[in-house]
């Protein structure tokens, strides 16, 4: 008889892997974006199961609320949502499946032969107050400098997005249909 938390873990990981597989093999691009959304929700459920509530909340807000919506927007902006993706050659599919299976088996064998032991499972977690203080601390072990650098990175990304997607007035915008 398995305890409830173990059953919850296997259910969550099965859901996560099946939706991820549907997302990378789906025929319609909009549907695979929706499967990606469910897969990212499964990752958030894994975080909740690991008691990392802050990380799970950030995962839902940033990935599910931000990135997937951005991807769906770009699907609508570039092509028809119900359009079928082209069929890939079976030779390429076979060899990529082979590479992926060999890589997975090799890394699983490496993990299994290392034999991880969980040391400190019963000690209490660092709470959110500690995390928040450490994020803005400039003392030893503080993350104030990466925090500020990430804010500069986000500003640069915002400016770069506008600069890339802007239609320049003098540039040649004639379509080059191949």
């Amino acid at each position, binding site marked *: 008889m398995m305890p409830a938390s173990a059953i919850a873990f296997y259910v969550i990981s099965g859901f996560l892997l099946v939706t991820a597989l549907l*997302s990378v093999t789906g025929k319609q*691009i909009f549907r695979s974006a929706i499967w990606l959304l469910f897969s990212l929700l499964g990752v958030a459920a894994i975080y909740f199961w690991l008691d990392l509530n802050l*990380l799970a909340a950030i995962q839902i807000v940033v990935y599910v609320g931000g990135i997937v919506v951005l991807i769906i927007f770009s699907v609508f902006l*570039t092509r028809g949502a119900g359009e079928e993706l082209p069929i890939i050659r079976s030779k390429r599919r076979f060899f990529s*499946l082979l590479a*992926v299976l060999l890589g997975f088996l090799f890394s699983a064998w490496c993990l299994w032969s290392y034999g991880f032991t969980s040391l400190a499972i019963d000690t209490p977690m*660092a709470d959110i107050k500690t995390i928040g203080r450490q994020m803005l601390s400039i003392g030893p072990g503080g993350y104030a400098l990466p925090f500020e650098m*990430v804010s500069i990175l986000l500003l640069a990304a915002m400016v770069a997005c506008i600069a890339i*997607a802007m239609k320049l007035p003098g540039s040649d915008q004639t379509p080059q249909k191949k």
Partner: protein
Amino acid sequence: MQHIPLLHVLIVSAALFFIGMYGMFTRRNLITVLMSLELMLNSVNINLAAFQRYLYPQQTEGIFLSLFIIIIAAAEAAIAIAIIIHLYRTYHSVDVEDATEMKY
């Protein structure tokens, strides 16, 4: 969660990574390549969170590394979508095989 060994969480994360890699190999549409990339980044985050929770629950390094990866992934997705929109405007396609201007 004492009943699940750390190995099972790591195996799930490795499986998610290789599913993303399969999508990366087989897809030819830039948006779906980006989606596979997000799956791979998420598997790395699961790894870091699991190590933090199982081995060093008093520390916060795993949470912070995952947090910065999520932030950088958001910036990367925004840039990628700007590039995709520009590519679509130039070539009328988001297929990676069609963008051959810098290939040869």
